[in-house]
């Protein structure tokens, strides 16, 4: 079959092929991961010792801000969309995404958004002057309103929102319309289910984010006062609107990772996923709850006590469906026949470390204790456990699991093992001590700290440098696997189930031109 595809740069610019677009998303997110990671290195270098040695406080704030924004909107979210593009059509037996041209557009908006986001850092050609956003990734008003180049940020967020909404529409349309005959909803792979639910979350909350940044824009440039008490507005309303987006956002980042490990653990346990139906319901329950718990990020703003009680009860409820998921993964491994290929190693690490992040999440949900935890390094440790050892580990597991199908080559086994073990140890040296300094009273987002926090910060920084370096090894592994390696079979893994394993390795440019039959 001829592909009629243009070659060279035009292939990538004009592609409507889900596999090409998936690849573009994944490379984009990896470049963003390294960029945001480099910023984390600056943060950890400044925090290595007490005293201000490396950058001034304004530049430090810009680093924490840009690190957060780039990792959330540039690294984790696009990586998940990249996985969705590559995998969903192959998993449901569809020839491509439902709306291939829009698919091209939803990717190619992203680099423009990223440029708008980082551009203010280079105004005047002096990077170290710290002209970029320095108001935290949560961009709370009125602090963000003081910032001179706010319009760059606002339009970058608008573009990111367009991209996400178009991507989500495409994913929903594909899943609901293009499943192979016989594949009922309750026969879909878990990864497809988690993305279907995630896509609905995205469509629901990205417009809210666009709305809140537009209000900031008109406050700053057109004389409104949504968030300015002097004009009858309310700065706390900003936080309510932001977190109405922000809380579902954290599930947008983690649900597809749940899907990934729900594919991987059964394969290497040689058992079906335990409690498939309850996994689907638990995912839907988590998604629903994510809309009604947002103000647990704001326990200290001075809400009425009834509000605090409600948000506390609703928040801790999330522990129930999350616990169900962890129990199901555990039961899947129980009495299986386990082997420990690289994707399985990352998935097991995910279950352990995400659960630790879940425990601290439960602790943070209790309003009266949150008064002590709030805005400390305990929170930083919590969300890095769920987003780095949760979402990012899920993405890396997915890479190792499906890369033989994508490239036709196996990953280099020894290097990949080194990558896993070095990352696993260093990420814990990096983030575990942050629980300690947070509990002991170190606030987050500070460039310098009181000396009693010195020792644990030192170790956290050392862990950070090693974890950062080990992702350079990951880059090497990716390139090496693309270029060659042991040839993969079509089945790749002994007991992997799903339509993607029925096509050749590497997957041909077009798959399932005629739909497969699912029994």
């Amino acid at each position, binding site marked *: 079959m001829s592909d009629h595809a243009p070659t060279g740069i035009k292939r990538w610019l004009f592609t409507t092929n889900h596999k090409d677009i998936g690849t573009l998303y994944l490379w984009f997110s990896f470049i963003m991961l390294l960029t945001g990671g480099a910023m984390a*290195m600056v943060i950890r*270098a400044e925090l*290595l010792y*007490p*005293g*201000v*040695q490396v*950058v*001034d*406080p*304004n530049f430090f*704030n810009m680093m924490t801000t840009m690190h957060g924004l780039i990792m959330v909107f540039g690294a984790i979210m696009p990586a998940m969309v990249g996985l969705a593009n590559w995998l969903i059509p192959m998993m449901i037996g569809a020839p491509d995404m439902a709306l291939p041209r829009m698919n091209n557009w939803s990717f190619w908006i992203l680099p423009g958004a990223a440029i708008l986001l980082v551009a203010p850092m280079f105004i005047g050609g*002096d990077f*170290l002057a*710290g*002209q970029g956003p*320095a108001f935290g990734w949560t961009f709370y008003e*009125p602090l963000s309103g*003081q910032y*001179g180049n706010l319009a760059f940020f606002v339009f970058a967020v608008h573009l990111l929102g367009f991209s996400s909404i178009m991507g989500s529409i495409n994913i929903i349309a594909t899943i609901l319309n293009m499943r192979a005959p016989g594949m009922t909803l309750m026969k879909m792979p878990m990864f497809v289910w988690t993305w279907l639910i995630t896509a609905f979350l995205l469509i629901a909350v990205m417009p809210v984010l666009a709305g809140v940044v537009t209000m900031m824009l008109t406050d700053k440039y057109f004389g409104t006062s949504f968030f300015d008490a*002097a004009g009858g507005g*309310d*700065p*706390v309303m900003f936080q309510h609107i932001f977190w109405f987006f922000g809380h579902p956002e954290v599930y947008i980042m983690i649900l597809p990772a749940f899907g990934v490990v729900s594919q991987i653990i059964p394969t290497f*346990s*040689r058992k079906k996923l*335990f409690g*498939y139906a309850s996994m689907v319901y638990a995912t839907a329950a988590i998604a629903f709850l994510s809309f009604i718990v947002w103000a647990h990020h704001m326990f200290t703003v001075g809400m009425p*006590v009834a509000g*605090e009680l409600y948000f*506390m*009860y609703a928040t801790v409820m999330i522990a*129930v469906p999350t616990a*169900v998921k962890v*129990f199901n993964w*555990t039961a899947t*491994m*129980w*009495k299986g*026949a*386990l*082997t420990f290929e690289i994707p399985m190693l990352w998935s097991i690490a995910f279950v352990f470390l995400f659960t630790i992040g879940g425990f601290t999440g439960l*602790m943070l949900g209790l309003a*009266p*204790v949150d*008064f*002590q935890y709030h805005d400390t390094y305990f929170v930083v440790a919590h969300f890095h456990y769920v987003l780095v050892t949760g979402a990012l580990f899920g993405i890396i597991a997915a890479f190792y699991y499906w890369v033989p199908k994508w490239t036709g080559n196996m990953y280099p086994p020894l290097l990949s093992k080194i990558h896993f073990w070095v990352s696993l140890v260093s990420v814990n040296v990096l983030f575990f001590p942050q629980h*300690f300094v947070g*509990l*002991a*009273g170190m606030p*987050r987002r500070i460039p310098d700290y*009181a*000396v009693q*926090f*010195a*020792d644990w910060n*030192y170790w956290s920084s*050392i862990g950070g*440098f090693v974890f950062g370096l080990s992702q350079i090894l990951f880059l090497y592994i990716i390139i090496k696997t693309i270029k060659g390696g042991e040839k993969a079979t079509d089945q790749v893994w002994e007991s992997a189930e799903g339509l993607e394993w029925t096509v050749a390795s590497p997957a041909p440019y077009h798959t399932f031109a005629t739909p497969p039959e699912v029994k």
Partner: protein
Amino acid sequence: MSASKLTKKLGSLIMTALLLGPAMAFADYSTLNMTESVSKIGQDMYDLHMLVFWICTVAGILVFGVIFWSIIFHRKSKGAKPAPFHENTTVEVIWTSIPLIILVAIAVPSTKTLLEYEDTTNSDLTIKATGWQWKWEYDYIDDKVGDSKGIHFFSSLSKDANEARQLGANKELPEHYLLDVDKRIVVPVGKKVRILTTAADVIHAWWVPELAIKRDAIPGFINESWFKAEKEGVYRGQCAELCGKDHGFMPIVVEVKSVEDYKQWASAEKGAAAQAAAAAAAASGKTYTMAELMAKGKEVYDANCLACHQAEGQGGGPFPALKASPVATTGPVSTHIDIITKGKGIMPPFGAQLSALDVAAVTTYERNAWGNNTGDVVQPSQVK
């Protein structure tokens, strides 16, 4: 400074760190757990924290134990054969119910503590804390214990810490680095102290871990919260909400004294305030020499302006240079004074924090330091 210079700096710092280790080990590794509180409700919070911690630990041991068991004994390499089961409704119902029951059990003490914490009635003393970029302002507005009503002052990072924390200062860090202020607030032991928080510019948060109080300070709104210290002592905290460049450098220090000592402090403080007011009134009419104003001006500049406009008035990033700037050289003195007292853009207004003499002195200083050399001498009488 170029980006390559930053890279170099990072490289050498990391090399030193790897070679020397935590050479500046001032502290110990015992800072592992939540700070214990000197208030009863803070102790309740701590107990709740420990309760949930142990519940999570036990749950973790059970779940992780099962996973480890599978990893060790259900390996294919040990000849394990996969069992066929993949669902069991009874088990699912049980492990959905157990977490639910535990949550209800935790919710009971949480609710009790929260309701107690939010009860701000029957306070003995009320202090208003106003957050500024980047310092705290305190007003004693109501007092049933002694006579502190009317006491008012600003509280900023202590001078030695402020010097040591400048980029590349490389000074020895003073005791209580970053947790010490030029003026502490003083409260009586065993009394319910209500703290009203608000802010003048952006959102801040007033947090003292040992007193178990953290509440956002929001411009245009007043929040209330309280603590009751059961033990005399000095308790230190920090701003806990990102409020811009020097968010990390606006500590809070509360000194808890016996009721007797507190009363004495209040009357001494009020006497000192009356004297200062009289002095300021006298000063505003007085004529100062250039040298006097320059000396005073440098002091005011270092404490209030240096953080953004830098030691040589060179500015940096979003903060404009004063050296050779039209405002501080050729422009009219009145505009210069207006910007200091009323603020401009990102710059907060200093009118409420500085006396007429302070403003006159710092204006004179900025117009004559770093080669600005305008020769302008600004007297307090010129400041309205």
